[in-house]
């Protein structure tokens, strides 16, 4: 709230959020001539199914707009013809790290060394997800047995949980990362506030599970039975019994989505209460 008020103030009194949006657009137009302040974005593919990348592509014209005006894709196995991990502003890492795959281990370390912001894109990267269930023994690399979320090997700045992560969240983080790195003071502040809960998730840990709902929401006396967790579960392991979540623990793939989605895991009033204006800013930035 205060944040947006400060935007309003610095842009001259009344509701001038539209102006911020216009400014973003003006900056964007400038960049068509000089790409100097586009950010460098990379997609690092470790042990994942490419579903996260597909999800990113499912932003359709939004992705084209991001790549046109806000970010250069400097690395991406399937989309950019670059062999070695370059310097990046934002690295989106998909998949967990296979400890027996020397190159993966080197890649994730190099990604950390060369990136300003490392984003764990999707649940394998954030929490291990389905790769937690690997026991190795498969052709043609039977020794590839141990998979860890990237946070167990490097410091991670931002989590985007989800299996797959929703295109809209990837879009929001991309726009906010751009504002954080290239925006004016107010835009930086807004982006910082927006990204903070996702940074807190990254600090919280590398395991995700239905049990997080038990230990950090229900056992803590915070669950009010809204049903968000059940909606967010990609494998329908959560049902609502007498108004409370019941997890089928054998079905849980440990993606951590339910906890991240729960309104009682994090809820930043100063950002979410401004949903109308922020949605407009994001939509405006992608027009």
């Amino acid at each position: 709230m205060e944040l947006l008020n400060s935007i309003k103030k610095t842009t001259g009194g009344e509701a001038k959020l539209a102006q911020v949006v216009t400014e973003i657009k003006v900056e964007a137009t400038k960049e068509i001539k000089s790409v100097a302040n586009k950010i460098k974005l990379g997609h690092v593919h470790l042990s994942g199914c490419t579903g996260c990348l597909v999800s990113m592509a499912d932003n359709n014209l939004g992705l084209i707009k991001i790549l046109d005006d806000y970010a250069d894709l400097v690395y991406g196995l399937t989309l950019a013809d670059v062999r070695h991990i370059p310097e990046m502003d934002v690295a989106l890492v998909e998949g967990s790290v296979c400890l027996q795959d020397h190159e993966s281990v080197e890649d994730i370390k190099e990604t950390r060394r060369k990136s300003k912001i490392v984003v764990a894109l999707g649940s394998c990267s954030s929490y291990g997800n389905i790769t937690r269930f690997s026991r190795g023994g498969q052709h043609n690399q039977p020794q590839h047995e141990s998979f860890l979320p990237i946070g167990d090997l490097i410091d991670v700045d931002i989590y985007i949980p989800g299996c797959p992560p929703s295109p809209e969240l990837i879009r929001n983080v991309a726009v906010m990362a751009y504002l954080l790195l290239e925006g004016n003071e107010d835009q930086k502040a807004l982006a910082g506030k927006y990204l903070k809960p996702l940074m807190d998730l990254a600090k919280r840990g590398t395991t995700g599970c239905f049990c997080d709902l038990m230990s950090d929401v229900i056992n803590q006396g915070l669950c009010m039975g809204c049903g968000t967790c059940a909606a967010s579960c990609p494998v329908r392991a959560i049902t609502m019994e007498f108004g409370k979540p019941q997890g089928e623990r054998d079905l849980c793939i440990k993606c951590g989505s339910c906890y991240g989605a729960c309104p009682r895991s994090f809820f930043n009033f100063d950002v979410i209460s401004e949903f109308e204006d922020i949605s407009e800013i994001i939509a405006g930035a992608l027009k």
Partner: protein
Amino acid sequence: MIEDPYLGKYITCVSARSTDKEILKKAQDGGIATTLMVYALEQGIIDGTIVAGEGDRPWEPRPFVAMSREDILKARGTKYSISPQISWLKEATRSFGLDKVGVTGVCCQMQAVRKAQLYPINMRDVPGKVAFTVGLFCMENFPYKSLQTIVEDHAAQSLNSVKRMDIGKGKFWVYTERGNVTSLPIKATHKYEQPGCHVCLDYVSNLADISTGSVGSPDGWSTVFIRTKKGNEIWSKAVAAGLFETKPIEDVKPGLDLVTKLAKEKIDKNRKTVEERKTFGVNKALRDPYA
């Protein structure tokens, strides 16, 4: 745009009642939520809406996706128990194939919808497909067994025989089909509330497009907050179409003062609870969901 620390942001506030006799017959108060959702459906603003219908047991709510006037009408009236509305939010865009989803629900559920829109964690397609939300005023909610205890043990009525329940004038009211009216002090019900309600910092669904509840308006009428641009557009059209009688909130008794008073009571009390959680144990805090 008015910004109130307890009532949230809103464009206007009025007292209103539906003009639809069929809806009013079973509505809790002014029939606002039902009438708005039926209107939105008929105008193509939404393709369907998540409402609280009837569950397996008497007075047990169960959320479902309503796609016709008939279905929406099944959800008339307040059921004082937990209905996990948001559990259908993503499915509404999938197996139900809705492009424009309506959601009715209480304060925390409106918060859940807005979080899902801004931080859509595994909520693909949800942000762009939430078309219209109507929030209800909510002081607290009861698990089903609590409701059973209140009605069957305290009010000594069988849940099967109950026609209507209501909270007002400091009491929990139970009306039976055969005309019995029992009430108990609302204070006696406090211990049966679900714990999650005690950290809730919203009373009048601050994050809905339109929010409504009985408090502040005379019997049979509802207080209505019009909050967002979208809400304002839909409300104006619905009023112009003659779906509501309205009165300025300043002209009705008990009016906005009572809404503010109750909102302040709830939110201040719960802020204190959130604060107390920080020193709950010995050098150990309970988790702060807003940190």
